[in-house]
Every structure is written in structure tokens, then in C-alpha cells.
């Protein structure tokens, strides 16, 4: 608590601590590193973004790009319950509604979890406890933060199940997770995450492993619930389609870093990073006539222990040799503004990228 009030009072003081932000959620230079026998795994290496209430941020990237690690970092789940393992090294700042979470007392952060910020995990079959009923699990989530009896909490659970569109919620509330279908489990997971009306909702791969109709229903549900509660949502996915549906802003991650960030339509229609081009090129699209095969991003994601020097994307980038003096392999590119509220981290000149996009990439998509 002392840490908390100190950093809260640091506004305007020349202590080096940066002032409290105006955005609802602001992440500044977040680094999450895991010491292992093979070396330091830099899962997230200097990530910054803001998110306002009622808005949705989509974080996209390949497996191992640090998306999930970022979300667990915001939830404070890297430090909770680490038994005997080597601890994750986390630095930077995470401001949620005026509170800095990394320096706050862990028990205060715990009280925020599930109430102020909550999370929909991928794979609800393993994320729900197999031995407890859906109702018991939602009731538990509610009663941690509300001093109510079990009956009231169960009414609330039924209400939430109804709201996420589970038929006969008063009966299904007593079912176990294995008695639900995949889509229903997802809904139950969402009901559990929303039971305390959280201001920040993190959805980690909310539609992976669901068939397309159920995917669409889940996305609709998230949108409706956001309208109703006005929560801020972070959607983590490797599915650009999901992001196109939901997100106001998009953050593209590569090798634990942000390579491009901006409003969704900008990132989709005027992307300014070769990796984003690669992602768009590898995405199947039904809204355009397909002339050629999908273009995969060549190579494989970088090792997070040995992130390539310079631009992390340089070994896979077809344009890595264009900038002079081998700069892509020696200097790490910083995010630079390429449009209004639109940033990209690339050594290629702004005009050069505009030209490559409009002349070489866009026509092929």
C-alpha cells in the first residue's frame, strides 16, 4: 500500500517516476523476462500502449510473440503463486484506472483481479475446474468480491448464464464443464469473467477451436456486452478476422515487441510494417477475389532467448537489405509515427514503405 500511494503521489515530483496517465489502461515499457537454464527468455521486451474505456484493442502476432504473457502480466498472474520456480522478472509500469499495478501490494492487485479486470482464457475445458459445477465456479467468482449469501450469488450466476445466451440457465447452472459443448463452455467462461462487471476484460484467443458460427456468436456477445457495460476489452488472437470484427485499435507484436500500432482501419488498409504485410498476405479473405495462393511469412518466429539484433524481424524480412549500412541488423528500430495515432517500428523510409505497400503488396491481396 505504501508503494501504491508513493507512486500515486509521484505526479509532478522530479523523482523519475512518470506521472499517472489519463488513459484508463496504460502500459509503459513493459518487460517480462523469464530466467531459464538456457538463458533469459525475453517474452515481452518493452511494450507500451493505452486503452480507453468502451474501446477494444486487438493484440495480434504469431505464437510466442508475447501476447498471452502480456495479458497475464497485466493480470499480475506471473507473480501470483510461483512456487520455487525462478521468478519472472517484470519491469515497466501498468496503470489501471490511476493505480500502478507492478509496484502495488500484491494483495491489492489480487482484489482487483476478477472485479476490476478479468480474463477469458483460451480452452475453457482446461481453464474451468472439472470437479466443480459451472454454477459453483461463477458463484465463487462473485462471492470473492461481493458479500452476499450463496442464494443471491446463484441467482446472479443464473442471470449471467442467461445473458450470455445459455438456454435453461437455471438448470445448466448445476452442470459440470464436461457436460457443456465447446461453445457453451466459452459462454460460461465469459459469464464467469463478467459476473463482477469488470472495467477491463482480457480475452485470450476467445474463439480459437470454435466452429465459425459459434465464433460469430461469441464475437457478437462480446460486442453486446461491451456496449452494455462499457468495459475496455483487450482481444488477444492470431486471427486477424477476429480483430477486424472487434477491435478499434490494433497492436501487432513480434518477438515480444510492438512492431505496429494504430487504429484498426489504418493497420488493415495502410499497414506500415513488413511483418504486418506478411500477416495480411497470409490471411485468407473471402471478400476479394483470390488470384494467387496465400503468401506465408517465410522462416519461423525468433528465439526469445536470442532475439536477432537490430530489428527482430530482419532474418525474415524481404526488405532487410534496403536500408543503408546494415542498420536493420545492428540498430533496434523505435516506434515512429507514420500517421495520426499510427506507429510502426521499421528502418525503411516512410515514403519507401508507402510505395512498397501500394505498388507491391496491396495489389496482391
Amino acid at each position, binding site marked *: 500500500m505504501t508503494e501504491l500511494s508513493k507512486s500515486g503521489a509521484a505526479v509532478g515530483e522530479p523523482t523519475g517516476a512518470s506521472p499517472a496517465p489519463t488513459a484508463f489502461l496504460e502500459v509503459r515499457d513493459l518487460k517480462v523476462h523469464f530466467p531459464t537454464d538456457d538463458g533469459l527468455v525475453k517474452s515481452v521486451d518493452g511494450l507500451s500502449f493505452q486503452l480507453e474505456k468502451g474501446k477494444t484493442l486487438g493484440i495480434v502476432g504469431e505464437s510466442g510473440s508475447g501476447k498471452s504473457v502480456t495479458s497475464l502480466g497485466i493480470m499480475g498472474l506471473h507473480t501470483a503463486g510461483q512456487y520455487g520456480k525462478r521468478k519472472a522478472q517484470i519491469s515497466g509500469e501498468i496503470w489501471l484506472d490511476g493505480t500502478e499495478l507492478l509496484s502495488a501490494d500484491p494483495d491489492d492487485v*489480487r*482484489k482487483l483481479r476478477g472485479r476490476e479486470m478479468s480474463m477469458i482464457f483460451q480452452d475453457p475445458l482446461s*481453464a474451468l*475446474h*472439472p*470437479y466443480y459445477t459451472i454454477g459453483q465456479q461463477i458463484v465463487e467468482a462473485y462471492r470473492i468480491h461481493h458479500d452476499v449469501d450463496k442464494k443471491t450469488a446463484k441467482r446472479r450466476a443464473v442471470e449471467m448464464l442467461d445473458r450470455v445466451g445459455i438456454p435453461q440457465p437455471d438448470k445448466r447452472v448445476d452442470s459440470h464443464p*464436461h457436460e457443456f459443448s465447446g461453445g457453451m463452455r466459452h459462454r460460461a467462461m465469459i459469464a464467469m469473467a463478467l459476473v463482477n462487471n469488470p472495467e477491463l476484460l482480457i480475452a485470450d484467443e476467445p474463439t480459437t477451436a470454435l466452429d465459425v458460427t459459434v465464433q460469430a456468436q461469441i464475437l457478437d456477445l462480446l460486442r453486446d456486452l461491451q456496449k452494455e457495460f462499457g468495459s475496455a476489452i483487450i482481444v488477444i488472437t492470431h486471427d486477424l478476422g477476429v480483430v477486424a470484427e472487434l477491435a478499434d485499435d490494433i497492436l501487432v507484436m513480434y518477438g515480444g515487441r510492438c512492431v505496429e500500432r494504430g487504429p484498426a482501419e489504418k493497420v488493415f488498409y495502410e499497414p506500415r510494417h513488413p511483418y504486418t504485410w506478411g500477416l495480411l498476405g497470409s490471411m485468407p479473405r473471402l471478400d476479394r477475389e483470390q488470384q494467387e495462393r496465400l503468401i506465408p511469412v517465410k522462416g519461423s518466429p525468433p528465439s526469445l532467448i536470442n532475439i536477432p539484433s537490430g530489428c527482430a524481424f530482419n532474418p525474415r524480412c524481404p526488405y532487410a537489405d534496403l536500408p543503408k549500412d546494415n542498420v536493420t541488423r545492428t540498430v533496434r528500430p523505435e516506434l515512429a509515427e507514420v500517421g495520426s495515432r499510427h506507429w510502426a517500428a521499421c528502418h525503411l523510409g516512410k515514403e519507401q514503405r508507402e510505395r512498397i505497400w501500394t505498388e507491391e503488396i496491396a495489389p496482391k491481396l
Partner: protein
Amino acid sequence: MLVVIVMVVFSIFFLVPKWAGVDIASSFVGKQADPAAVEGVREKLGLADPIYVQVWEFFKGLFAGRTYVGGGDVTHCSAPCFGYSFRSEQAVWPVLTDRFPVTLGLALGAAVLWLVIGVSAGVLSALKRGSLWDRSVMVVALSGVSLPIYFTALLSLSIFVFGLNWFDGQYTPLEDSFTGWFGGMILPWITLAFLYAAMYARITRATMLEVLGEDYIRTARAKGLKEQTVISKHAMRSTMTPILTMLGMDLGALIGGAILTETAFNLPGLGQAVLNAIRNQDLPIILGVTLITSLAVLIANLVVDVLYAVIDPRVRLS
């Protein structure tokens, strides 16, 4: 199920002596006995009958009692007749009922002890993985698993009974004096529990570590639960499942007689009875105890299956 097990046990007991070329009748009577007496015993015990007749006679005896006639004398064994030991001139059933409570007390008391010690040590080890505590517990557990009962039993006897004189090393029946019984059982309990607690600590630690890595534990934390609740409620419930399985099998086997422990501490339980019976080639007693053991394992597993369904809802469906 029970009938099948009884059949199997029977077949083994009746076939093995035949294959081994041991004539039970003459071993009862003695090597120098006259052939007529041997034939009399053979007739009385029904050893000449085919196996299915012998099995049937035994089953009938369980409910209706049994009268052995042959060689000029008559021996009655009232229901439930588990057979009659001509070696020790007594029916088997009273031997079993006399000795069963001793073994049951030993097994249950030791089980309580090893569950409390083993499971809590295992959980703490898992939560403090790699710490000095964890390493010490695992070393002690390793020695517990490796040291044979007859070593630890004799060691504890020589220290606490003959060295320090803390206990008198005598068994007192529970109905005579509770404190006497309790005092006599402490060492056997501890000796037996040491071995099992070691095994349970290891399995608890391994299971707990596995469970702590499950997604639903992360979900429990994400709800804002206190870590204490995450462990004691969410993680413990899953950890109990394999422990329960082991407990069922171990208890079942122990109720059949902890031969080494009972012999070392001179406890008049089933294990001691069966050991004496083996020494005396007293087949009916061996048979009776074996049947009780099979029954105990069966019942223990049944109880575990029922408890399983209580703990794990997924079992209820299938």
C-alpha cells in the same frame, strides 16, 4: 465378482499342492502314519473329490455349517464355516474374527497417521519446491521407501522398548483397556506409517506440482482468490484423486494382514496367523485369511470407486 475371486483363490489352493506333489492328507497325519488313517483324513476333508465339489462344500459350509465325517470320527464346524484346521484343532472362522480387529486397528490407525503426515509433507514440499524443506522431506521419504519394515520395526523396538523403556512392547486388546491398546499400537503404527507416509509424500508432491500447472488453477487466481484458497480448495481436490486410489489398494492389502509388522511387534493379527499357518502347513487357515484379504481388497476398491464418483463428477457419467 466375489464368487469369481473365491473360485480363483480356491483353484490356486487346490491345484498348487497337487502340482507340487504334496499330499495334504498325509502331511496332516504325519509321515509315519498308517495308510488307513491317511485315507480317513482324505475322506474326511473331501480331498479326493473333484475341485468343484470341494468348492461347493466350502460354500455350503459358509451358510449352513459343515460336518466332517471320515476315518471313524466326526468334527462339526458351525456356520459360517470357513473351513476347519485339523492341524490346530479349531474352526477357521473364530480365528479370523479374533484376529481381524487387531489387523484392522493396525491398518486404520497407521492409515490416519500416514495420510496426515504424508499428504501434508507432500503439499508443503510442492509449494516450497527446491527448498531445504523439500529436499529434506524427499531424502527422508526416500529412506522411508527404501528401509524394509523388519529393519525399522526392530530398530524402533530396540530403541523405544528395550532402550528407553517407553513402551512395554505388549499387545493389549482394545476391549480390555483403551490406553493399553493405544500404547501398544503406537510403535507399530509409526513403523508402518513411516513406509507409507514416504510413498504418499512423494505422490502428493508430484500430483500437486502437476495440478498447480493446470489452467484452472490460473483461472482460480484470475478470479481474485487468495492463494491459500486456491491451494486448499481447487488444487487439493484434484490432488486427492490419485491419493484415494492408492489408499484403497494399500488399505485393502494391509487389512489382509501386515505380516512383517505384526510379527515384529508380536501383534495377534491376521498376518501373524497366516505366517504361523504357513509354518505349520495349515492350509485351511491360509485359505481363510487369503479369502478375507481378497474380500478386503475388493471392498476397499469398491469404497474408493464410490468416493471417486463423489470427488470427480466426470466418473458419474461413465
